[in-house]
């Protein structure tokens, strides 16, 4: 089981690197879907099968399909790739990469300290999650539903086609 975790972790990091560095949006999206699927495998290995299923269905399924639809609607082609190539110069990557490496070194230093623990427990079943979700976290569920309603109304308002004369 351990080797599955390490392989999935390597795939996740490599595909995320590819996702943030591709010029073509569709290629980047496919690499991002690969990254999300490998994170789902990691969830399964860690004993969270319900969250692994949610990751595949909602993240890799619904949210990435939204991205793919928008990229298709925008109809970006070779022109977008050329524009990205013009924007992306090699020197742009130096500063952010150094800063991120410093942060990663700090995180590694902090979490690899003494007293590290392993997972020994069993998998957490969906039943446990449901009981906790509709018990102590009920107010959070209600707030999440209000957030989704607000996002629905907001996306509808922004996506509405306004007549040309009200533009500007």
């Amino acid at each position, binding site marked *: *089981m351990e080797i*599955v*975790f390490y392989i999935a*972790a390597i795939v*996740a*990091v490599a595909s*995320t690197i590819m*996702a*943030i560095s591709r010029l073509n949006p569709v290629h980047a*999206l496919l690499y*991002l879907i690969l990254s999300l699927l490998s*994170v789902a495998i*990691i*969830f399964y*290995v*860690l004993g*969270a099968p319900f*969250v692994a299923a*949610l*990751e595949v269905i*909602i*993240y890799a399924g*619904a*949210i990435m399909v*939204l*991205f793919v639809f928008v990229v298709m609607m*925008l109809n970006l082609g070779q022109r*977008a790739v050329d524009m990205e190539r013009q*924007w992306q110069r090699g020197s742009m990557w130096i500063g*952010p*990469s150094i*800063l*991120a490496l410093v*942060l*990663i070194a700090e*995180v*590694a230093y902090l*979490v*690899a300290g003494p007293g*590290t*623990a*392993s*997972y*020994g*427990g*069993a998998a*957490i079943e969906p039943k446990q*999650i449901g009981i*906790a*979700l509709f018990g102590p*976290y009920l107010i959070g569920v209600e707030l*999440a539903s209000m*957030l989704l309603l*607000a*996002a629905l109304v*907001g*996306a509808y308002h*922004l*996506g509405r086609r306004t007549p040309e004369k009200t*533009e500007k």
Partner: protein
Amino acid sequence: MASIPMHQGLLLAGILFALGLVGLLVRRNVVFTLMSLEIMLNAAGLAFVVAGARWGQADGQIVFMFILTMAAAEVSVGLALALRIYHRFKSLDADAVSEMKG
């Protein structure tokens, strides 16, 4: 389940978060910016699930579901805004929107 040291899971979450941060800082395309935000949110959720698995509690997974809800809401509004920006400015450049000279 697997006996993986906890710091390795947290380290993976940190690496993914930092990669998303690099993408957010480097890319100028609005769609790539939203994708980097998704990477960062997913990494934060991974850290919560790792911590929940460490203590054998369901709370980490519940927080991941709240993060998932928030990511879905954020990406729907963000992509609608990206479509508006593209229709108005004929470009996905984030700098094209800097009309408000403050």
